[in-house]
């Protein structure tokens, strides 16, 4: 018999790993550059999840101080991730600009076609 309670308590970690692994697969196995970048942003998002899940305290609330509330979740991972999100979108913009230039140079954004063109040249 599977212990569903334990699974539920580990569920965040399991899903985080699954998302990471799937998006890693998208990044390394799919040939299309735009899809690779989508995978990269999904990977970033799963890293956010990795950081934010342990910060939660069941029964606590968001770290905005109010009277009559004692338990708050941990605010420090939130700060880190807030920075990471902004840096992530900067990376994404740069990557997409590179994709546009690759399209200009090779006429395609498929990885294998680019390799073929490089091999011929």
């Amino acid at each position, binding site marked *: 018999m599977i212990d569903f309670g334990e699974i539920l308590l580990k569920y965040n970690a399991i899903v985080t790993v699954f998302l990471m692994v799937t998006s890693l697969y998208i990044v*390394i196995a799919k040939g299309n550059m735009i899809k690779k970048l989508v995978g990269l942003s999904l990977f970033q998002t799963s890293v956010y999840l990795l950081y934010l899940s342990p910060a939660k305290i069941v029964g606590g609330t968001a770290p905005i101080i109010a009277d009559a509330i004692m338990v708050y979740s941990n605010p420090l991972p939130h700060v880190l991730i807030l920075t990471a999100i902004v840096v992530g979108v900067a990376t994404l913009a740069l990557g997409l600009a590179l994709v546009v230039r690759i399209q200009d140079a090779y006429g395609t954004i498929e990885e294998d076609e680019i390799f073929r063109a490089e091999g011929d040249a």
Partner: protein
Amino acid sequence: MEILVDAVLLTLLVVITLAILFQRNLFAVVLLAGAYSFLMASIMLVLDAVDVAMTEAAVGAGISTALFLATLYLTHGKEYLQPNFKFQSILVVVLAGGMLIWGMWDMPEFGVMQAPLHENTAPGYLDASKNHLMPPNVVTAVLADYRSFDTLGETTVIFTAGIGVLLILRGRKKPKKSKNKAENSHET
């Protein structure tokens, strides 16, 4: 209750990720990524990360979608056909996933208050916000006060990325579109 909502949303996230993996139409992929961002923002809200949820919704669902669409326009967003199954990639991915699961299995359980993470620095910041003249939002306090130089550096990163995008796209044939893109990345 929180755990239940969290679990349902995470399951939906898994479903959408699989759909993105198997979807071959890039336009649909971008749409699904937008939906993914909204779901992820909801999860962040359930995990009590209010500010992060707001930023993720704005950045993930708003700006990223616009950037992807602009790139799709410039690259014509064709469908692609390629052999789907790559054994080496799957091997690498499964190995990495197994090791991650193995490593994360010993982490404290979800939502426990006695986890080591919650016992060292965080109470200090919370107390400071409660008792000293700090804003009630602890994340804001840390971000704009204790670590404001870090935030300045972050702004510099965005600035650098904007300049980078401008430089990369400078010599193109259609300067109008590249300017559009650069502005998009700049607004963050």
